[in-house]
């Protein structure tokens, strides 16, 4: 038994634990936590303060009892709720579609062998890196030429579901003409999501055992059967990663929505657009702006807090 261990036993303290270097390390780490969370913390505190309060107290200090209010959140929820609904209608289908397409493409490009394959893979992967500015004008031209509203006229303006519900009154689920812009956005996001989802799935499919797929093939299973029976069930963990990552990407986008939604606002506005309008106005005060930021970010924050690990995998595997 060394002198050091002896000492530790006598004093009853783990000497490793009070190593000054370790203390400095943890102090730095905690300091960084403060740095990374401070914009969120001071934003949240400001959102909970009255106008008189946030103008006079430091931004990171919690509100006093008199200075506390939930009104900014009320205003933010009122202003943003329909846009958030639009964002959900956009992000969910766009995410699912691009994940499915990415999985198909990765299977076709990874678990088969043919000449020219790598060239096609390269074209998929290069698609991740293009600056979207290079496609904006064609996109706005395209969606000016393709009149989705006209094409889908028979489908829009239909009441899908209508019922009398006690307390709530008439509950109606109807399609609206402005859904046409959302459909345009879904198609656009699906297309531009395919490169990254393909990359994520391809990384995963390379690890699948070739013997297993070959055995299934020798048993007479066609490409579709192999995909449906073997590859797809095995892809579920990767689907989780891809869906979570892509959902935040689509939800967070502003640029495509600016271009594709006519006049940028109105009933088809998505959360990022509505937040930009809410906070860009001259009248809105900072407490409402901060509440708006939290309301618009809530879905991605929830996804991140619940599935942070999977998000990190998507980040490391792609972007």
């Amino acid at each position, binding site marked *: 038994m060394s002198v050091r261990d002896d000492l530790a036993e006598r004093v009853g303290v783990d000497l490793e634990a009070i190593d000054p270097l370790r203390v400095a*390390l*943890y102090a730095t*780490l905690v300091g*960084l936590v403060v740095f*990374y*969370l*401070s*914009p*969120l913390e001071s*934003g949240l505190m400001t959102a909970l303060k009255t106008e008189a309060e946030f103008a006079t107290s430091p*931004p*990171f200090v919690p509100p006093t009892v008199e200075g506390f209010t939930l009104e900014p959140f009320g205003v933010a929820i009122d202003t943003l709720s329909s846009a958030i609904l639009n964002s959900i209608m956009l992000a969910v289908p766009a995410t699912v579609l691009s994940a499915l*397409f990415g999985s*198909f*493409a990765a*299977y*076709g*490009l990874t678990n*088969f062998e*043919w*000449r*020219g*394959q790598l060239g096609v893979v*390269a074209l998929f992967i290069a*698609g991740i*890196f*293009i*600056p979207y*500015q*290079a*496609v*904006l*004008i*064609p996109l706005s031209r395209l969606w000016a030429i393709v009149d989705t509203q006209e094409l889908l006229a028979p489908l829009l303006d239909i009441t899908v579901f209508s019922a009398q519900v006690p307390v709530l009154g008439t509950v109606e689920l109807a399609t609206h003409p402005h859904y046409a812009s959302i459909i345009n956005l879904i198609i*656009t996001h699906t297309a531009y999501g*395919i*490169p990254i989802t393909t*990359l*994520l799935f391809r*990384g*995963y499919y*390379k690890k699948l055992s070739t013997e297993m797929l070959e055995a299934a093939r020798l048993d007479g299973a*066609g*490409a579709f059967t192999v995909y449906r029976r073997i590859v797809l069930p095995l892809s579920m963990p990767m689907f989780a990663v891809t869906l979570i990552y892509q959902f935040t990407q689509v939800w967070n986008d502003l640029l495509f929505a600016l271009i594709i939604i006519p006049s940028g606002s109105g009933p088809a506005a998505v959360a990022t657009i509505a*937040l*930009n309008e809410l*906070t*860009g*106005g*001259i009248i809105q005060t900072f407490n409402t702006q*901060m509440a708006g930021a939290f309301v*618009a*970010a809530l879905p*991605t*924050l929830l996804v991140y807090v619940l599935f942070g690990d999977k*998000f*990190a*995998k998507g980040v*490391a595997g*792609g972007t």
Partner: protein
Amino acid sequence: MSTHILKRLLDRLRDGGPPVRTDGGTAAAGSETAGGDSDVGSALSSLRESDAVRSAPFWLPPFLLMGFFVYGAISWNIVISLTDFGGLTLPTYDPSTFDLEMYRRAFSDGQFWIATRNTFVLLISFTGLSLAGGLGLAILVDRGIRFENWFRTVYLLPFSLSFVVTAVFWRWMYNFDSGLINAFLRGIGLDFVASKWLTGSIDTGALGAIPLVPDTFYFKLFAVIFALLWQFSGYAMVVYLAGLRAIPNDQYEAARVDGASILRMYRRVILPQLRASTVSAAVVLMVFALKAFDFLYVLFGSNPGPTADILSTMMYRQAFSANEWAYGSAIAVVLFVVALTVVAPYLYGEYRRGEL
């Protein structure tokens, strides 16, 4: 456990990045024709060809959708940049009228050069600082700390937020009267440093920014870069962490046995092995810097002024505010070429490494 997968994923990213090969498209077209004649002839064709046929239903539809929107749109954009498309009249796609006038106009436009210079300032300082910050974070987190997952989650959190959301937060952070940055500076007695970080101008919101003072110190751009650093250093950390975890433990041990100090160990043993992580993180960060449009747009509208204007905001302004569509397209082509010069060598390198 999760970091293990992270690492493997990263390796996949490196393996899976071959370059753009010009013959890629032809090969794809060839396999498609093979798919057309599904008679006795194709049954006799080699296994290789039949694999191409059997895989086509899977990759071809996504390829067509993606190809139309990505490569089709880029080509269309190049064509528009050759026209005189502007205002409310529709573009005329008559090859005999195509010229490079829009590019000539860009190269003789002072604003264009200012935006280009700012783009490179942003590109280089943002990427460099994010890499340094991310590496620092990764080394700290990799020191065998407790609650590692928790710390990592906090540092990566801003990356999951929209540019719109982070811009709103930072507008408040930088607020002159009550923002946290100035509150902090005044708190530690540095009142004289407290500044109108985002200005040299007054932000009137809907009306855009009106310049008050000529900004000689790049305050505005570096205020933006600092906020972006907050948002993206967590990303660089994740990539570096994966790189650090890929280095075998015995190398740390060997360095320790040799009596190398921690600093020396990192400089001599660890850093050289992070080259691949640095390259892939740098490429992604540069692409993000080129996409920083959303952030600037929320803070400053479509005209951030000469000290923060970058090519992507200028392109948007020319096209969608001034309706100078062809001019906007030409700027977009320049932006695309900048991105290509960053990405193409990277993809080619990945391809080479994957082949070797």
